[in-house]
């Protein structure tokens, strides 16, 4: 499969993958935010999603734009801003 070189499309893929983490296991995300161990709690799921992202996107684009990590923060954390946590 051809790799993605378009930054918009790569960003959209990152967000779709991260959004899926939230859709498929909202409780785990909620507890992770609540107890401030989100990235440890979802380590396996995040690693799988990141691997998929890196397989699909031009490596240089993925590295330079840091798109996957931005998606993690923008989607996973930002969407959970109503969850009570000491993070905020």
């Amino acid at each position, binding site marked *: 499969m051809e790799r993605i070189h378009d930054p918009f499309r*790569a960003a959209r893929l990152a967000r779709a993958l991260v959004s899926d983490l939230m859709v498929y296991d909202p409780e785990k995300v909620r507890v992770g935010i609540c107890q401030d161990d989100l990235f440890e709690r979802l380590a396996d799921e995040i690693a799988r999603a990141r691997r998929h992202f890196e397989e*699909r996107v031009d490596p240089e684009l993925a590295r330079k734009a840091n798109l996957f990590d931005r998606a993690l923060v923008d989607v996973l954390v930002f*969407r959970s801003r109503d969850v009570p946590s000491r993070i905020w």
Partner: protein
Amino acid sequence: MKPLSQQDHYEILEIPRNASLASVERAFRLARSTFADDSLALYSVVDPRDAEAIRLRVEEAHRVLSDPALRSDYDASLPPAPGEDAGIRFDVEPVRAAPAASPVPEALAGVAPGAYDGAAFRAARLRHSLDFGQIAGITKVNPRYLRYIEEEHMGGLPARVYVRGFVDAYARVVGFDPSQAVAGYMERFDRAVPVPQRRGRFLGRR
């Protein structure tokens, strides 16, 4: 990637020049949803002024390409497209519209005949870099049901007639042949859900 100002209407909507009217409509709905004001997909990626410029270009592209007369004039003004056939980046043309001799479309890669299961739908969705919200925006199907389709959580889905419609709509967006995808998926649904249980959620309980 060309700057926005140098992209033609087809490039803006990410469709080939021979795209059907239905493809134009689908691409427009998808682009409109992607570049919407409140689009999560664009949050912090695109400056709001740039997003507004893209939205205007998308609207203009749709206005021209959805009118056969305007489109014909516009096509005549375009230079020949080099390698247009290989340039489909975001097209969701149903597979049945492709010539028989064409290569297997991207959306079908990895889907064995008759294996239109939940995983195939998810893989196709991610190949198009779409999340549930975007699919729901186009199909008007509740994201929860889209997720159940992917998870094959058949017990959570409504009556068969609705599921058939949902699967058909979902299949079209991710570029599957709707008739094959519906037949393949509904076979799985029928195996998983006993007939009496399929009645009732929307059609009234006996």
